[in-house]
């Protein structure tokens, strides 16, 4: 009898842990400008290589280079930079309010601002995002009133969700921002369904689905790709790979031997892998995918490679599972700093304007926070009546809910 080798289980680990030095040298990235730009009606089979490369536009000196660089009005870029700065100021303010006990919970998107802000810039009114909790940039980039967002965070009387939802789980139909679910992944396939509906109705509106690297492991991710593959609806399937899912890194979601962009291949869906910290690359890749959708060419999957700078949420402490200096090792830099460099290089921005813009935006955020707070916070001041809990469970309140509301004293 032949000696059989003993099997063993492979359990992926991040390259480094607390106490060690941050290290992302295992990630393979392309040089800025290196990756080709195929036509939008390319045969998906012909761009499999792109899933293993990284579309980057901006080089280290702040120049836009290569085939994905295209001329953007500097005004649009400044708008993008302001959106990112405002998102960051917003996050900082909400963190503070959470620590002061004015809300129960908050989630930042620090380091990932370019993705949502840049993507939103390529959409049109009537399109629909199905975001995760880390895409506040989609709202901020379209200048959605901060006070409105904050009132949701504070669960106060002006909270459009009437205190029902966990903070950050916005829902703003008018802004093409679908109600966020606390359940990971579920909305990916809903976005596909929404896009199918648009196609069924011979409409021209498109959908954008959003998911994190960790959540691609959920079942709905597969369901979404299967349905997108079969019916070819107008949807952009975004995967935000920020390297982490709470305490586990992307290897635990199956990113060790492959990329998340490559997931699309087995479904015959074209995919791009893009530097998510490069605002110029985000703009370019987004419009490529949006154009495909709009022209009825079907779905595109985009893996946005980025880094979650912040803790997962206000309940998280990353020092337990990754080095304190982890961020320093991140090779793709900071999206704000990078776009600032590019604009400065173009002569369209400067350190002074930057400092001033930041101050203005922080001021704006602070003013909004003050106004929002005047409508109450989770713990103090005005809030929605508890009786509201019984509304909207159904369109019409059925007898048993009326009875229960009465029992509650309303």
């Amino acid at each position, binding site marked *: 009898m032949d000696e059989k080798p003993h099997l063993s289980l492979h359990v992926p680990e991040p390259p480094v842990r607390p106490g060690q030095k941050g290290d992302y040298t295992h990630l393979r990235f392309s040089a800025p400008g290196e990756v080709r730009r195929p036509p939008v009606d390319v045969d998906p089979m012909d761009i499999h290589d792109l899933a293993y490369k990284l579309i980057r536009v901006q080089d280290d000196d702040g120049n836009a280079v290569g085939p994905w660089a295209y001329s953007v009005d500097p005004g649009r870029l400044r708008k993008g930079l302001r959106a990112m700065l405002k998102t960051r100021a917003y996050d900082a303010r909400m963190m503070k309010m959470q620590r002061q006990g004015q809300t129960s919970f908050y989630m930042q998107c620090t380091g990932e601002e370019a993705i949502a802000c840049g993507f939103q810039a390529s959409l049109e009114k009537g399109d*629909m995002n*199905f975001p995760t909790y880390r895409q506040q940039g989609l709202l901020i980039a379209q200048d959605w009133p901060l006070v409105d967002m904050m009132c949701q965070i504070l669960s106060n009387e002006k909270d*459009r*969700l*009437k205190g*029902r*939802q966990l903070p950050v*789980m916005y*829902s*703003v*139909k008018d802004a093409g921002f*679908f*109600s966020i*679910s606390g*359940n990971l992944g*579920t*909305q990916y*396939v*809903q*976005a*596909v*369904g*929404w*896009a*199918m*509906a*648009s196609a*069924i*109705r011979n409409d021209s509106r498109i*959908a954008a689905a959003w998911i994190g690297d960790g959540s691609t492991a959920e*079942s*709905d991710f*597969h*369901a*979404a790709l*299967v*349905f997108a593959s*079969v019916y070819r609806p107008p949807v952009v399937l975004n995967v935000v790979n920020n390297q982490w899912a709470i305490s586990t890194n992307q290897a635990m979601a199956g990113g060790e031997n492959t990329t998340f962009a490559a997931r699309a291949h087995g479904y015959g869906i074209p995919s791009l892998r893009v530097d998510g910290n490069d605002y110029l690359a985000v703009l370019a890749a987004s419009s490529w995918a949006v154009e495909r959708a709009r022209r009825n060419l079907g779905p595109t999957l985009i893996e946005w490679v980025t880094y979650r700078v912040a803790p997962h949420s206000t309940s998280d402490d990353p020092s337990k599972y990754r080095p304190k200096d982890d961020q320093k090792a991140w090779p793709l830099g900071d999206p704000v700093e990078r776009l600032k460099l590019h604009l400065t290089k173009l002569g369209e921005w400067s350190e002074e304007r930057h400092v001033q813009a930041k101050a203005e935006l922080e001021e704006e955020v602070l003013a909004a926070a003050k106004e929002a707070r005047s409508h109450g916070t989770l713990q103090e001041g005005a809030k929605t009546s508890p009786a509201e809990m019984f*509304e*909207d*469970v*159904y*369109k019409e309140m*059925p*007898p*048993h809910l009326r009875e229960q509301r009465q029992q509650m004293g309303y």
Partner: protein
Amino acid sequence: MTRRTMIEAIRDAIDVSMERDEKVVVFGEDVGFFGGVFRCTEGLQKKYGTHRCFDTPISETGIVGVAIGMGAYGLRPVAEIQFADYVYPGYDQIVSEAARLRHRSAGDFTAPLVIRMPCGGGIFGGQTHSQSPEALFTHVAGLKTVIPSNPYDAKGLLISAIEDDDPIIFLEPKRLYNGPFNGHHDQPVVPWSKHDLGETPDGHYTVPIGKAAIRREGSALTVLAYGTMVHVALTAAEETGIDAEVIDLRTLVPLDVETIVASVSKTGRCVVVHEATRTSGFGAELAAQVQERCFYHLEAPVLRVTGWDTPYPHAQEWNYFPGPDRVGRALKQAMEG
């Protein structure tokens, strides 16, 4: 008026709805070209095209998930789950998403879906073609759960369901598709064409969601039943000679408490019947409510006749199914109690 089987009534309800509202779309496994394994959607793809009636991949997760997206867009999706036993991969989408979308978005988005699924045993389908999972939906706030017992109701309730703005679980007792099966599996089933409730109006009409129907008036005892069990209960009443009032609930949530309370207050006795497993079945809710609301009228405990707390067995199907004998015995016991 046309005599229709339950399958024909369901098909007609969808047809009428698709005709009236082009936002109604119909899909599911084998639902398009083939017309569904029970033929409930036969001919609809031909009539309305592949944009409005189509096959899907075998993914209940996906079927419910895309239905929610379509509903949020503004369509009225009518999705078929091939057997209720296969709904579980779509359960998360139903419970976490469809049921709560209106509430969590404060009405910003809604999920006006109908999820149709054949349920119940009696066709030697074994544990994966026989289940009655209604209680797994009735526990979930935001869902309505409907289950017709005859062609007339099936058509009227399904039209109501499609027009309703809330997500609806629409259970179709497959053993009733062709006739009012009364539980005597060794006797031939009368076809719907020979049954009054096989008589269904042509065109549009509705049966309201949330209203029960009294199928047999009586003064001695109230039987609460739905789906196949309505016919079993009627038979048990005939066979025992007990003057039972048999209520066909038709909708489980929202429940027609008024009709139930009026009946039990009159009879003072109540037997609850369902095919699903006993523990935490919908019968528990019914028994709990009846004793809460009619305690001082009750002369005997509310009894439950249900499927056993085991998987639905294949060969022992008729030992599992709560047939007229078991129901009859409970009626007698309730009269003695």
